[in-house]
């Protein structure tokens, strides 16, 4: 009698044989699936007893977050736009109207002393008011202040404005520098100059001053100097909108602002920006 043949080994390939001894718990599976990004909602129970299972899908959360971010961006854009409009109105139209007022105030004297000069001043005032009307129309139509200005001519015009309190300004404009500036940068510098000169006229009691636009060490410099009563720069910070607007415009230009003044020794505003 021969020994029985050994049974051939067969490989059992059923899935049951390969199945893990213990199937992962729901919590383990959920955590693993969450990490692997294989689920898109968790079931949340609210309250005891007869709980209502509320679902929050990650798509919903992501969409909500995205909408929130977009709302925040729109709000920020609106706030910035409002700030810009306030600045432009304050520095542009309001300053221009104030300058016209000074000119007309001076006309009362000129009518008696020099009627021809008075007539010229009235014509200048009329021209300035027309410009203000143009600017306001631009605001209303949403275009903001007019672009494409001749910075050199505008600086000369505001520097040569006449009036009882207007000091005699020496104007030193490098036309090549003024012409090379991008329009939006030229507008910002003009608004800065308007605000600076307006502050001098209203507060400095200055007899003379200087407005200069030049290039130094690769930078464009706008300088406004006066020989007036000066002020305490530390006390002035945070008061009034004018200096705040000047600082905000310089920041927008990524430039540098130096404000120096000592009581009874005049003041100096120096703005330095890159050429482009």
């Amino acid at each position, binding site marked *: 009698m021969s020994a029985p043949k050994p049974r051939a080994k067969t490989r059992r*390939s*059923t*899935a*049951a044989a*390969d*199945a*893990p001894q213990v*199937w992962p718990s*729901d*919590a383990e*599976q*959920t955590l*693993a*699936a*969450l990490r*692997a990004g*294989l*689920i*898109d*909602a*968790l*079931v949340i129970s609210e309250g005891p007893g007869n*709980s*209502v*299972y*509320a*679902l929050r*899908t990650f*798509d919903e959360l992501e969409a909500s977050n995205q909408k929130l971010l977009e709302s925040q961006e729109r709000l920020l854009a609106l706030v910035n736009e409002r700030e810009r409009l306030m600045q432009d109105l304050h520095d542009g139209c309001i300053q221009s109207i104030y300058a016209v007022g000074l000119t007309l105030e001076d006309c009362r004297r000129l009518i008696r002393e020099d009627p021809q000069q008075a007539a010229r001043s009235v014509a200048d005032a009329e021209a300035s008011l027309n410009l203000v009307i143009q600017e306001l129309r631009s605001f209303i139509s949403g275009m903001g202040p007019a672009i494409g200005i001749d910075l050199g001519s505008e600086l000369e015009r505001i520097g040569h404005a006449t009036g009882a309190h207007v000091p005699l300004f020496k104007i030193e404009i490098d036309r090549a520098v003024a012409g090379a500036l991008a329009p939006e940068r030229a507008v910002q510098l003009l608004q800065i100059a308007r605000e600076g000169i307006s502050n001098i006229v209203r507060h400095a009691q200055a007899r003379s001053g200087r407005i200069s636009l030049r290039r130094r060490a690769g930078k464009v410099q706008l300088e406004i100097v006066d020989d007036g009563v000066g002020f305490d720069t530390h006390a002035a910070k945070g008061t009034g909108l004018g200096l705040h607007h000047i600082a905000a415009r310089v920041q927008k230009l990524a430039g540098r602002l130096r404000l120096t003044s000592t009581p009874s020794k005049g003041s100096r505003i120096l703005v330095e920006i890159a050429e482009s």
Partner: protein
Amino acid sequence: MSKAPARTAPRKRAAKGAKYELCLYVAGNTTKSSAALANLKRIADEHLAGEYSIKVIDLLKNPALARGDQILAIPTLVRRLPSPIRKIIGDLSDTERVLVGLDVKPHA
């Protein structure tokens, strides 16, 4: 006298024609829910030889239904039959894992 062999609880089987009774919990047409349904249909067609029934429960429409099978996450596939009940959580994109979870021998 020999003892009678211990009797184990008989394995509950599905009704005839539906060996696998599957229930897929989804949340509307979200990305993973849609993927899970598509994957389940594919796996069932390829490996369950028509011996299955699939029920889809949309918990967005009726969240309270999650209580019955104690659903934690979406999508979840519940194998009700054959017992024991087993859950596979995720979008069922790993076919091999799904087959293991269902105790199904893969077709060649």
